[in-house]
């Protein structure tokens, strides 16, 4: 019972949300408290990773109810890494939000909502109970609904409507899946489900339930035929909210897919993981082709989220330790890089008043630093050595060769090239092209200063994330070790099961 740090990723954001809400009318106090809260979450993430690294998988039985009966919280390496990434996102966004979110939105509870969102996300990462996971998903969803509508612009309201509808359908599928699982095994504890499902005689029925979960989590993760809500909604809110959603929310779906398809839906790999492989390929291709057609930066980047989700699913579908390690590294890398790209696009829009590539131009002349800060994550996203994206794609492709999945390797390489194409498109249009006849600024108006007071809040998070990406690129060794450990835990669910169920004996 001394593993109470496992409760911290849930309680800490909740406490932050409550305290921030108390200071409802004092925006600057809210900003400061939110920063403290986010720093704390990052620290908790680091502690959790350290603890799991040193002592192996950790679990805690809430209320001391023994394992299959009560709610269990479990942190294996994968969960710990995800909590750490959530903490990092919270930390950089806490700085960025100070200057990026307008007063009106801060006044209507932006900080409280962001913290409940992080609570839901961390809860989903850390829980070992399938129904509890459903509840955390709902916490996360309701916060994200309100964050999307916050401000009430026409586009936002309409985008939220699409987002809400599809996500409620996904939740209904999830709930039905949980119901089936309970009916088949009589338990909700994920480790216990894994044991009981492996002994279940009717394996065909398990595959049917697996498909329910695939649809439910597939909608959240925005995989191939289920992604249409994402490009319709993610570009509508202010850029700080979009960046949190892009970095974090769709990865929760991927996390859940990896969790259930490594822990208990492993009886019929020939069918389920082949299907995942096909989905992965189509997700990559459709996402990147959609992005190639866009001239609005946020929409372009939103479609790239989808294409990158494909790589993560590819790692799950190949289903070897190396492939899963690649998938997890890709999730971490993508959270950093994708958040960073959205932040850069937000700064561009703040400086030039537009996201439209056809209007923008000449940014690298006016703001060389901003050019660098865009170029590094953009090349990393495309997988250029020696940046972070190169290593995760290398792991995935190496795993693909070992498993002799040549088709998916070919697809992933072509998609990388197309990713590079759309990144150079942004570069050429927004950064290199001569500044178009100014439609957005008045003629003769001097360029806004990037280093002036409130804009520094925008600059620091981008520099931090770029540094993290470069660090992973040049010193990949510790990150490799961590994701390898996570992948081994996932491939040998027996450890996980022993820790959760053994703890009760």
């Amino acid at each position, binding site marked *: 019972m001394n593993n109470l740090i496992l409760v911290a990723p849930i309680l800490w954001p909740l406490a932050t949300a409550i305290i921030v809400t108390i200071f409802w009318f004092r925006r600057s106090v809210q900003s400061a408290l939110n920063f403290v809260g986010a720093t704390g979450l990052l620290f908790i993430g680091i502690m959790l990773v350290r603890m799991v690294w040193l002592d192996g998988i950790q679990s805690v039985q809430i209320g001391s109810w023994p394992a299959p009966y009560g709610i269990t919280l479990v942190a294996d390496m994968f969960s710990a890494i995800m909590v750490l990434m959530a903490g990092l996102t919270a930390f950089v966004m806490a700085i960025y939000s100070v200057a990026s979110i307008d007063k009106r939105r801060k006044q209507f509870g932006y900080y409280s909502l962001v913290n409940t969102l992080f609570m839901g996300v961390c809860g989903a990462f850390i829980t070992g109970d399938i129904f509890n996971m459903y509840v955390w998903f709902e916490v996360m969803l309701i916060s994200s609904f309100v964050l999307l509508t916050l401000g009430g612009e026409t586009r936002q309201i309409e985008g939220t409507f699409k987002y809400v509808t599809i996500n409620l359908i996904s939740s209904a599928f999830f709930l039905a899946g949980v119901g089936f699982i*309970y009916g088949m095994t009589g338990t909700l504890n994920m480790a216990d489900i894994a044991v009981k499902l492996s002994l279940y005689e009717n394996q065909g029925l398990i595959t049917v339930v697996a498909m329910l979960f695939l649809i439910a989590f597939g909608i959240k993760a925005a995989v191939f035929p289920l992604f249409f809500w994402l490009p319709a909604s993610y570009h509508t809110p202010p850029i700080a909210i979009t960046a949190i959603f892009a970095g974090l929310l769709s990865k929760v779906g991927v996390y859940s897919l990896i969790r259930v398809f490594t822990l208990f839906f492993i009886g019929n790999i020939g069918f389920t993981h082949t299907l995942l492989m096909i989905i992965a390929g189509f997700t990559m291709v459709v996402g990147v082709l959609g992005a190639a057609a866009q001239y609005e930066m946020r929409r372009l980047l939103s479609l790239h989220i989808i294409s990158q989700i494909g790589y993560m699913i590819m790692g799950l579908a190949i289903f070897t330790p190396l492939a899963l390690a690649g998938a997890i590294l890709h999730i971490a890398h993508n959270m950093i890089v994708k958040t960073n790209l959205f932040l850069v696009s937000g700064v561009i829009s703040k400086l030039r008043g537009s996201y439209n590539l056809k209007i923008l131009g000449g940014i690298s002349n006016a703001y060389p630093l901003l050019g660098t800060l865009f170029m590094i994550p953009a090349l990393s996203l495309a997988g250029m050595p020696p940046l972070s994206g190169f290593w995760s794609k290398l792991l995935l492709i190496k795993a693909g060769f070992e498993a002799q999945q040549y088709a998916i390797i070919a697809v992933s390489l072509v998609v990388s090239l197309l990713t590079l194409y759309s990144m150079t498109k942004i570069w050429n249009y927004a950064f290199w092209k001569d500044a178009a006849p100014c439609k957005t600024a008045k003629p003769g108006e001097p360029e806004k200063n990037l280093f002036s007071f409130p804009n520094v809040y925008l600059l620091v998070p981008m520099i931090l994330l770029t540094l993290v990406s470069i660090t992973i690129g040049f010193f990949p060794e510790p990150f490799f070790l961590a994701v390898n450990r996570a992948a081994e835990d996932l491939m040998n669910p027996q450890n996980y099961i022993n820790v959760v169920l053994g703890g009760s004996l």
Partner: protein
Amino acid sequence: MEVLLAFVIGGLFAGAIYMILRRCVVKLIIGLALLSHASNLLIFTIGRLLRGKAPIIEEGARQINETVADPLPQALILTAIVISFGLTAFVIVLIEQVYQVVGVDDVDKLKVTDSSN
């Protein structure tokens, strides 16, 4: 009883999907509500139906000796109902907003987010 409920659940799912595919926003909300009812009833049925066997330990006894109904599915449904109640309330306010700012209740005409910038 199980067979009857199975048909009811099937009917609810079918009705929900039909309503979700309608173009009218209000009907879509009714469809979503039906969908959550269908899932709840599914959990209820799948937890085995037993009539008049409350899971209460007799006074003086240490444990239950006969077969009793499983209380857990009902606890799950209660949680799910509360969640879907909150979400439905949010969605109703949202469609009111949609109607005010976009001015249509036809899903096919909600195209603001699809037009380029």
